[in-house]
């Protein structure tokens, strides 16, 4: 009973502190319209009557307690709290008050990262473009395994899909207008044709601009509008900046040729591959394209050529040092259960770990899987880092993301737990999480102390 009294006193003390501290904090900080104080000061009655730990399963709030938060943009917050509301991150930091009834995850000892993003993947979920939602199977093995591997967003079939177990709400994020271009040195005719077509697009755009200008300036200008012909409509989108060109280039020759093309016809571009990119990183950095690289893709140096060739374990590090922005994708762009571990999207961080082995800073590797990938897909305003206002797509790992023993323990997408290692049937049996939380252990000890001695 002395403990109860103590608790009551503590509560009173805390109340007093709140009364003193809160107005002060408000006076110091400029008013932030986004941060709403959702936890009004409880009256004494509430403190006495309500269990402060009561959880409402339908609460809009989710609190992740005690995890080391890797924000990507703002560094590490050790043992912080993440407060999510309605699928967004509301607050995060060391001191965050917890709204009443909030759902909570006790993540002490865990590492919190933004959900990982797979650029240019294929076959993780069904469906293309606008049909993605109608084809989605939120109970599919791939969804669960993707979440178990830390993925929360995949680009597939020209669309962006969130991986969510058990619901269709919000799985379709949007379409990505990528145009696949082939500019390989192995097909000179193809290269010539592409250049010619892009040239026609440029001529058309110039003629059209000229025509529009004349029409605006000269009152009796009667010329007909120039016709868009002789090229694919999507090429027009490319040069207008409404679409993204997707190239595949690995050899030094192809990489440099692609750079030439991009310098001649500036457009948004994503280049997938980049195995020999380390040899021309400075040039690549100046072109401003974005990259999707596979650090473990190997090809041996060609001894017969007089320029650098072959793969390098330092590829990612060299690109990063030259300011090239890239995402990382494994050799297999899907989730494979075929038996060879570590080559597919199930183990995306392993691929990045390989780049770290080659000297890429860990922070940069994390960016490549999260924020830089989101940038490539044009969703970095919503995803890719842990910041207030962004989507609450969070993975909680039991160790460093790039360690091979690390498991994703929980995956949260849009503020809802969509994967729990102990509840999904795949990895629950491997190093199971202790069922007793620290609170329960402490409570048990306290009970043992309080219990009157028998006999």
């Amino acid at each position, binding site marked *: 009973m002395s403990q109860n009294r103590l608790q009551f006193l503590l509560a009173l003390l805390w109340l007093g502190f709140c009364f003193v501290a809160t107005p002060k904090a408000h006076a110091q900080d400029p008013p932030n319209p986004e941060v709403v104080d959702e936890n009004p000061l409880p009256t004494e009655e509430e403190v006495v009557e309500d269990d402060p730990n009561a959880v409402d399963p339908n609460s809009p709030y989710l609190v992740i307690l005690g995890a080391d938060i890797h924000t990507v943009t703002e560094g590490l917050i050790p043992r912080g709290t993440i407060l999510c509301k309605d699928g967004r991150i509301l607050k995060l930091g060391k001191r965050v008050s917890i709204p009443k009834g909030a759902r909570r995850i006790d993540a002490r000892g865990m590492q919190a990262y933004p959900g990982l993003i797979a650029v240019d993947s294929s076959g993780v979920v*069904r*469906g293309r473009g606008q*049909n993605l*939602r*109608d*084809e*989605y*199977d*939120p*109970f*599919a*093995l791939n969804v669960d395994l993707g979440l178990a591997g830390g993925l929360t967003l995949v680009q597939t079939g020209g669309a962006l899909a969130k991986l969510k177990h*058990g*619901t*269709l709400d919000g799985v379709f994020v949007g379409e990505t207008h990528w145009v696949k271009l082939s500019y390989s040195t192995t097909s000179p005719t193809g290269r010539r044709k592409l250049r010619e077509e892009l040239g026609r697009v440029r001529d058309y755009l110039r003629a059209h601009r000229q025509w529009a200008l004349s029409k605006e300036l000269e009152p009796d200008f009667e010329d007909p509008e120039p016709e868009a012909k002789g090229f694919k409509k999507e090429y027009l989108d490319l040069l207008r900046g409404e679409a993204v060109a997707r190239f595949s280039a690995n050899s030094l020759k192809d990489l440099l040729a692609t750079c030439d093309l991009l310098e001649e016809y500036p457009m948004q571009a994503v280049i997938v591959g980049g195995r020999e990119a380390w040899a021309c990183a400075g040039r690549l950095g100046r072109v401003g394209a974005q990259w999707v690289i596979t650090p473990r893709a190997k090809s041996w140096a060609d001894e017969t050529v007089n320029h650098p060739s072959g793969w390098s374990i330092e590829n990612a590090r060299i690109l990063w040092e030259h300011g090239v922005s890239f995402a990382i994708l494994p050799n297999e762009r899907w989730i494979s259960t075929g038996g060879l571990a570590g080559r597919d999207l199930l183990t995306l961080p392993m691929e990045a770990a390989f780049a770290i082995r080659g000297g890429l800073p860990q922070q940069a590797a994390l960016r490549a899987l999260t924020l830089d990938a989101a940038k490539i897909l044009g969703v970095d305003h919503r995803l890719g880092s842990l910041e207030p206002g962004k989507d609450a797509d969070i993975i909680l790992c039991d160790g460093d993301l790039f360690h091979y023993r690390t498991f994703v323990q929980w995956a949260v997408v849009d503020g809802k737990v969509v994967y729990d290692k102990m509840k999904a*049937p795949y990895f629950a049996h491997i190093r199971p999480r202790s069922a007793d939380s620290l609170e329960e252990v402490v409570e048990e000890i306290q009970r043992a102390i309080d219990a009157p001695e028998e006999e």
Partner: protein
Amino acid sequence: MLQDAPRDPVGRAVVYRFDKVETLDGEALENVTILVRNGVIERMGKAVVIPEHATMHDYRGSGKIAMPPFALSHANFLVRDRRGSGRNAKYRAVDSLWLEEGWEKDLLKEGVVLVGVDPPGRGVPGRTSVLRVDGQVETPDPLVADLHLKITVSNSSSAKRLIRDSLAVADKAIEKENQARKDWEKARADWEAKQKEKAEEEKKKEQTEDGTIPPAVAQGEDEQKDKDGQEQAPPEEFTPPPVDPNIAPFVEWIRQQRVAQVWLSSGADWLHWQDLLGERELPYEIVLWHGTSQNIYQVADAIAATELRVDVPARISFLPYTRVRANLPAELAKAGVSKMILSPSSDSWSAVKSYRFAVAEVVANGLDRQMALRGMSLEPAMSMGQEEVLGPLKVGSPATFVIWNGDPLNPMSQADRVLVDGVVVYDRAKAEAEDQS
């Protein structure tokens, strides 16, 4: 009907005495006497006064059990047709019947007196029908030719588009009809008002000429005027604009005049169905038709929350990608599904033959026995709207029951006799004798 089967005289009481009767109206009763007169159970219980001259069938000590017969909700081996996955709502299952000789006897042998048949195909293949199995005629006169609208849902954009578009077109048809009705009502009202005006004018004229006029004559004159009048009268009865026969069932469904049967095979299908339904409140029943592996257990709670009738195959399935056995009927019951049809695990003859065994397995693995028995007989009958043909055994209900020579869920038991309205429509001893001769 079997020619040799004993026909019980009208008005004469027939008495059956059993050690055990599965009434399906609560727990099984022990040591029961059933008195049947005019095809109806007149008395039933432990102490029944047996009238004189009553025919007596005393099965006590033989281990025989009486129980309401079975109803198969999807006897689709009786139906054959080639139809794809489009919008085929105009078809009825009864039009695709493909019956082989002796089909009725084979069904009666398994204790089945009612069968539902579905139109074959996917998408919106048509409407279901109900047949009575009574061994009376080879080509059946369906009890219900046009019952539920069958719809299969899956996580495919084309399947979803089909249903979404059908509903949208039906909505438009309803709107069109409502508009037409409004127009007709207005035209009718205008015309009637005009007629009244005319009549009054006539009356005034006549009255000014000479006193009163017999009403019959006035009316006759009115009719003549109508014919001469330039304006044509709108029709007396409203005729709705024609509706595409593939859309008409949807129109009826939206108007709550028809129940749909929604076929789902996975947990995702359920979510997609909810997505299609949106805010609409439409009457429907759920038919689950998954394969040997299923993840429907994931949405069991959501399905139970609808309190709808669920048709589930009697089968122990596996959790996806595992060999972990899952008893979906028991899981659904646990989640709170109370109206459950347990159907054979596939639409084939062999599944009907192993039906009782399959149900026994589901019961042995945790499904309530009473629920299972109801799911084989009363629930499918209710789904077909035939609760008056096939109901629990109690005083006043029709004497429609099967006499099994053992526990009906024991696959070794056989149906000895099947009675429909007190008439023996199947007698195993006679049928076997016939087969041998």
